């Protein structure tokens, strides 16, 4: 019996200050099993895995690997015991080759010469055995994100990992890539490896796992087999109450607010835009799906006035946009949710009121003769906080104290309370948990109902299908032909995102 248990956690408890991140967690992993650890952000998944991998040590409880106790708080010991960790943010070096990334630290440091040939053979063997194709001598930075992930997995296997832990492995992948990854993981399990993957995505848990353990607020709340449960049940277990994402109602679009004709944007260090054309009317939402890094940033930035179009014609609210001018966009009534909320959306060191009023600080409302009217600024901020249910701080608190979901609500609030005529929403729910996502979605739908034209740029297909009227995919800076949301499903959008724009082919392809 004990032969088949690869890993057993018993009574793991870990406290950070006041909060109990892990509360008496026990679970076991069979040999050859794929176990999904499902939970919202902050449920304690990552803490648990960090304890397992030795990044932290637990306050109480033990980790046993193949019947032997693991020395706590020591990554080396974990690696030696056969645990391999695939982090969400890869632990790789872009400027080194695939082989170099894999080899680092695997040889005695004072060896007079690296045994490169042997290492290459071992790497290629592993790649072959587990279906993870790689070219050992490519520079890592030249690989796609999916390929980089393969390298990360191979790195763990190279260290003779028998138990593999993957932290949100599909967060960076396209749907087809994700599906391919599940297959690889299943194949690895068949060959005797044991896997745990962390996720908050219901569909992938249903698809890829043999068994699902649901964590909520640091405790194991349920254990299910996918065949015996449903997405709805898992969602409820994970959140602790019933949460349904809202869906748009039928609406009639109003006047034209954005007209883009063959807009191009050149960027030196990233993909720009090529010949992008679309229209957007008041009270309408256009969804743009795509794998990250395909020109979404450029699209969001040119619409927000951060970048100027280098060719083509862009008319927003009747004004021809020829140069980058953010303040003019804000004055004209363009609200913006920046892609990276912590870098572009807010300044973490500043207070909530400073962040809420910053882009409108020149208005008569907030300042006179160049002096800020703090009372008015604070009052307005309080309004945003109340109306958008921002939790975690008042107007005078520093913004970096808020959680991601609350920062996003704050950003959304400062935009929507000003009644924008256009809202550019770039990745509005990236990394947020189900509760926050539902809240943001209802706000976006309210804005649409109130006549705001919403340009929704997102990687979350369900989000786009629920919120948008029309959907395009963005691939290498180009927009696909658009389809109506009624005609969209995850598979079809997945194909569009992969660049397969032959619309009939979409029906038949796998």
């Amino acid at each position, binding site marked *: 019996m004990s032969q088949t248990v690869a890993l057993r956690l018993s009574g793991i408890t870990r406290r950070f200050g006041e909060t109990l991140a892990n509360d008496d967690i026990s679970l076991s992993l069979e040999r050859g099993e794929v176990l999904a650890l499902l939970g919202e952000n902050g449920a304690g998944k990552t803490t648990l895995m960090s304890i397992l991998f030795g*990044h932290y040590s637990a306050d109480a409880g033990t980790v046993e690997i193949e019947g032997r106790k693991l020395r706590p708080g020591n*990554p*080396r010991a974990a*690696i030696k015991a056969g645990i391999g*960790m695939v*982090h969400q*943010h*890869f*632990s*790789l*070096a*872009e*400027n*080194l080759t695939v082989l*170099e*990334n894999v*080899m*680092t*630290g*695997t*040889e*005695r*440091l*004072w*060896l*007079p*010469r*690296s045994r490169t040939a042997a290492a290459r053979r071992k790497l290629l063997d592993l790649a072959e055995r587990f279906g993870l194709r790689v070219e050992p001598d490519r520079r890592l930075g030249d690989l796609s994100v999916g390929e980089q992930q393969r390298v990360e997995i191979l*790195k763990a296997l190279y260290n003779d990992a028998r138990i593999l832990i993957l932290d949100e492995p599909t967060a960076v992948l396209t749907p087809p890539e994700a599906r391919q990854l599940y297959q690889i993981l299943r194949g690895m399990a068949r060959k005797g490896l044991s896997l745990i993957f962390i996720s908050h995505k219901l569909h992938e848990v249903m698809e890829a796992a043999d068994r699902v353990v649901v964590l909520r607020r640091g405790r194991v709340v349920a254990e299910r087999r996918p065949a015996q449960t449903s997405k709805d049940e898992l969602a409820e277990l994970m959140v602790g109450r019933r949460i349904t994402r809202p869906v748009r109602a039928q609406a009639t679009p109003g006047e034209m607010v954005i007209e883009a004709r063959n807009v191009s944007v050149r960027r030196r260090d990233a993909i720009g835009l090529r010949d992008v054309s679309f229209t957007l009317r008041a009270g309408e939402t256009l969804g743009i799906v795509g794998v990250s890094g395909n020109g979404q940033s450029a699209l969001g930035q040119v619409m927000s006035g951060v970048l100027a179009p280098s060719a083509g014609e862009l008319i927003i609210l009747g004004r021809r946009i020829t140069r980058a001018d953010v303040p003019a966009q804000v004055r004209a009534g363009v609200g913006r949710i920046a892609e990276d909320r912590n870098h572009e959306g807010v300044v973490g060191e500043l207070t909530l009121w400073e962040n809420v009023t910053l882009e409108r600080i020149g208005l008569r409302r907030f300042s006179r003769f160049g002096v800020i009217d703090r009372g008015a600024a604070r009052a307005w901020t309080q309004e945003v906080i109340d109306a958008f249910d921002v939790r975690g701080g008042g107007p005078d608190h520093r913004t970096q104290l808020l959680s991601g979901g609350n920062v996003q609500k704050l950003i959304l609030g400062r935009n929507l309370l000003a009644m924008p005529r256009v809202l550019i929403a770039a990745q509005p729910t990236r990394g947020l948990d189900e509760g926050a996502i539902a809240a943001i979605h209802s706000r976006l739908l309210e804005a649409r109902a109130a006549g705001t034209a919403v340009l929704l740029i997102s990687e979350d297909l369900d989000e786009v299908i629920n919120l948008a009227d029309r959907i395009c995919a963005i691939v290498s800076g180009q927009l696909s032909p658009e389809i109506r949301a009624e005609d969209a499903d995850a598979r079809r959008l997945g194909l569009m995102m992969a660049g397969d724009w032959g619309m009939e082919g979409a029906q038949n392809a796998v």
Partner: protein
Amino acid sequence: MEMIAILGSQGLWEAVLRIATPLIFGTLGALLCERAGVLNLGIEGIMAFGALIGWLAVFNGTGLWTGLLVAALSGAVFGLLHAVLTVPLGLSQHVTGLGITLFASSLAYFIFRLSVPLAASPPTVRPFQPVELGLIGDIPFLGPVLSSQTAPTYLAFAIALVLMYVLFRTPLGLAIRMTGENPHAAEAQGVNPVRVRFACIMVGSAMMAMGGAFLTLSAFNSFFPTMIQGRGWVCIALVVFASWRPGWALTGALLFALVDAYQLRLQSVLEDSIPYQLFLMAPYIAAIAVLAVTARRARVPQALMKPYRRGER
């Protein structure tokens, strides 16, 4: 015509190797620090201190090689200081480095003043002598050029080869490069980035100090406080020019030395028509021009100037 004739002169190429040597030491030292992820702007001061302490040791009766070793050790000590401030404490590498430069150059001058009485002409030591090369010395042109060089010049070339080998052919080199690119990944693979950084900064700083000592123990035979003359800064630029590769660092140092040696000779030819200050600027202008072209394609170590703290991303 004469401008081209200079290029064929033996004296020019002798000078090139002599001028390049301290730059090679310094550039390789700075390169090693940066490969591990730490910028060491202490170089200018460390070179000055190495120049003084090496010379002072020899002036007080030790052998030339001992003097060079003393200089290297003093460099390692300043390296240790830089490492303590920038690695575990994570202070700004710019500010720390500039601070060390100011501190080390002032300390060098102070010690010089304490130990050597003021005199009209500074005291001298007997410097390194050219190495006898036997048969090689008989090769036309190349023979005499090489025969005029001293042993530390050969040492500089040897260090370049060793560094090339270590960085790209050994597990240690891979650990160093990984530390400069992604110390978190290095740590996760069982490499200790803090130790690697300490070691690289100390060894790199020792090389810088040897570059300084070459000036007082081979190129010249006495110490004067302003003798480094920005050579350290040139090394920092050469590292970028070299795209963090030792082979290119060697090439870059030789190119810079060529322009420098050439302009020195050009001065005497054209001194009537063009002010000599313009010639003095030539190597630096050339360096900036080359940097403007090459720096953009350079592959910077991704973790350069980023302090490493365990557990933080």
